[in-house]
């Protein structure tokens, strides 16, 4: 079996004169354990490998082809397929591959202890997580889902423009969905954490948090419609960050699909709102030495104290927009060519802790979960209307639980209305967000 470096080099060597060829290969081993009623519900092992070839003809036409677990001959065949496919594309002078650049390795991305961890330990961890979840509170006797998973992955990229980069990483994560019950009523509580090694995962906290988030919703009522301060907890806030990420991609801007297109240099959010994408931030789970086309990762401040600075670029959008790549090429694995995406995309934390934020939001609502964001938020117009669950805020504490609410506004209005940002920054895969206080918002109920 050829190693990843051999695969990508074989593809690049198959380039013909005048062509630009890039090969991206990845392999991963993934283990997933789910536990239910003190037993292993499922144990999944996965080993996968694949390579994708991007080829640009001299006139700027682009073709793509991929193959799962290719031999050296099959990866060369993918090059000829990409060449055949390119013939049908529209010429575009901005289809260029990045030039080689040295990316500083990030050793901490690979945790040898995690990579060497035996399966028994993972199984025990999932069982412990389930046991802990159902033993914290008499109202939580069952779980919907408890899962531990990890992955060891390697990526290699090579191109005719001189890119030759490889790196390895480890990731582990766990989640719990607790079922809290009281008589006929059921509520669910979700928690999730991700890290590069077990010692940083804090999985015990996942059980406690799932239980707390489920039990505190018991007895929830549908509130009357009201206009009040709204505190978005990090779980709820992270959903909105996904919408922002789409609108801040240069691809969306160049194609007329971003609400921020004409607003560079303008105040788009409140003074307390700073938004960053940083592919080298070790605290973030999405750190990597380079992006999915081999451009070194970097830190980009997209919004500084409310002012929009610019957008996220890959090599294509940078060339087209006369800008520099921000190291934001992202692809959904080897099956597709890179688009523009985020790395560690996060809201800069403030200094207030949760209690101070609650005091500030007295009389308002803490939103702990929003639903329907992928369908209820329009990343082009910025309008959204989503379902929400949460709790009333009384003084500096949480009060009555609330369900069947909707919150509706626009992204720009919400950003302008941010009145405080908490110190509790928390990452969920690639997005990170602290608690965010919105001065006033309509919460619709009865």
């Amino acid at each position, binding site marked *: 079996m050829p190693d990843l470096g051999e695969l990508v080099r074989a593809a690049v060597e198959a380039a013909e004169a005048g062509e630009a060829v890039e090969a991206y290969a990845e392999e991963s081993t993934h283990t997933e354990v789910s536990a239910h009623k003190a*037993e292993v519900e*499922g144990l999944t092992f996965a080993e996968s490998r694949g390579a994708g070839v991007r080829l640009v003809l001299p006139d700027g036409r682009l073709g793509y082809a991929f193959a799962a677990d290719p031999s050296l001959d099959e990866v060369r065949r993918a090059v000829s397929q990409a060449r055949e496919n390119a013939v049908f594309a529209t010429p575009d002078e901005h289809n260029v591959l990045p030039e080689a650049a040295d990316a500083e390795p990030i050793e901490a991305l690979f945790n040898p202890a995690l990579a060497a961890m035996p399966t028994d330990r993972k199984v025990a961890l999932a069982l412990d997580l389930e046991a802990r979840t159902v033993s914290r509170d008499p109202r939580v006797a069952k779980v919907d889902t408890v899962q531990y998973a990890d992955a060891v992955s390697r990526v290699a990229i090579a191109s005719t423009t001189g890119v030759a980069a490889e790196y390895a990483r480890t990731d582990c994560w766990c989640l719990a969905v607790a079922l809290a019950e009281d008589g006929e009523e059921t509520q669910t509580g979700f928690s999730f954490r991700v890290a590069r090694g077990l010692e940083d995962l804090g999985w015990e906290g996942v059980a406690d948090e799932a239980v707390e988030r489920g039990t505190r919703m018991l007895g929830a009522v549908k509130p009357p419609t009201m206009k009040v301060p709204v505190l978005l907890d990090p779980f709820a806030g992270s959903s909105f960050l996904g919408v922002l990420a789409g609108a801040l991609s240069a691809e969306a801007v160049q194609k007329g699909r971003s609400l921020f297109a004409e607003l560079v240099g303008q105040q788009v959010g409140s003074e307390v709102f700073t938004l960053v994408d940083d592919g080298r931030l070790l605290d973030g789970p999405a750190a990597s030495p380079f992006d999915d086309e081999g451009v070194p990762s970097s830190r980009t401040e997209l919004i500084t104290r409310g002012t929009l600075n610019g957008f996220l670029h890959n090599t294509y959008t940078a060339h087209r927009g006369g800008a520099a790549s921000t190291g934001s090429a992202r692809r959904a694995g080897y099956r597709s060519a890179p688009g523009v995406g985020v790395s560690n995309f996060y809201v800069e934390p403030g200094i207030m802790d949760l209690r101070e934020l609650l005091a500030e939001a007295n009389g308002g609502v803490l939103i702990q979960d929003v*639903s329907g964001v992928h369908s209820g938020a329009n990343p082009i117009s910025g309008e959204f209307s989503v379902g929400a669950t949460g709790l009333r805020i009384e003084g500096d504490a949480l009060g009555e639980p609330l369900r069947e609410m909707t919150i509706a506004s626009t992204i720009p209005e919400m950003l302008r209305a941010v009145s405080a940002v908490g110190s509790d920054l928390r990452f969920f895969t690639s997005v990170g967000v602290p608690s965010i206080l919105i001065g006033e918002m309509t919460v619709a109920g009865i």
Partner: protein
Amino acid sequence: MLDRSLAEEVLRAARRRGGAFAELFVEERSSVSIRLDDGKVEELTTGLDRGAGVRVGHGTSFGYAFSNRLNREALLEAAEAAAASLTQGEAGNVVDLRALEPPVLHAAERDPSAVPAVGKIAWVREVDETARGYSAEVRQVVAGYADSVQRVVIATSDGRWVEEIRPRLRLAAQVVAAREGNIQTGVHVAAGLAGVEVLDAQSPSATAEIAARRAVTMLGSIPAPAGEMAVVLAPGMGGVLFHEAVGHPLESDAVDKEASVYRGRVGETLASTLVNGVDDATIANAWGSFSFDDEGAPAQRTVLFEEGVLRGWLYDRLRAEKDGVPSTGNGRRQSYASPPIPRMTNTYILSGGSKPDDIIASTARGVYVTALAGGQTNPATGDFVFGCSEAFLIEDGRVTTPVRGANLIGRAIEVMSAIDAVADDFDTWPGHCGKDGQSVPVGSGSPTIRISRITVGGTGA
């Protein structure tokens, strides 16, 4: 792809520590996809994907392992890994494999691989040109075309041998329109478990025109009202709601974990007596159909609701064996990389006796929803939420101004019980359903239906 003697050897290896059954799923998928965006054919991608997954089931637990490699060594290694989830036990037997006859076939009449790439590019260009020609307010068009052929072989230790070829074709149009700083999008899709005949039934221009009409219509929209009111769902859309709010809680894994609002309630009236609902994988060439599910169980039609009475669950093999009933053929997976779980296929609310015009005319005030953007549901509580991508006010029995930002929010049983009219103009909507990180093609269908009272979340008065 695989000979039977090797399949038997792999199944024996997987049962070396017993378990209730072992299963081998082998897949090869070739695909073509084309993306046109910003007036340019950005990318034509071809790919070949293959792999095999081995599962050992015991109770409602399982061990699963997969590999991209299909040689003997790799398959036996996967079998060993899957068996490792059982820590002790005696080797189980493997019954001689016998091929099963499919209950229904979904062949492509016109094979997409016989169409040269130029022909496929002409379809995405047709979408672009039609949409841009629809109105000067159309600013951007994305056309996505994809066809694939998935070849599947499934072998099980109890002697099941299934081979199936699943052809799929899909063409989607997304149109952005703008007027004075107001930007709106419209989407429409044609798709089937079939070949090029999908586009004979609904041409690329027709798909483009509907998407463009939606985007341009919504430019004239006002913010949706908020509060409780009557909502009329256009043909197909009731099926989308039924899928999310009712279908997911009826999947047997949710029921088994006591995480379903419907648990223990078969035989009770939990919807309006006007509601007859089914899940049906046998509908010829429908997007969510197949001949066998991904565990080798034959496709079937399963009645979920009969005149409002809950009739049963959607079963995969693990949950069916636990309950001592036959699988309903709802064990599906995204690919060899995932173990099968209970999923829907084509989920429909069947036609009733009302006329759509009468339903609108008898609605004094409410919202008429012609396109849903998708939704989310919590099976344990039945709480759901839906975004509406195209909707209108109903005023004095007439459909009037378009509204934006409308959101439907409610609880499954209450909302299904509030259906007070079901028309006879059935239609379907092809989509993708995501669950546990796996996406599978599903169909939704319904005639026009009315919900007498449901919460609409909007920003208007």
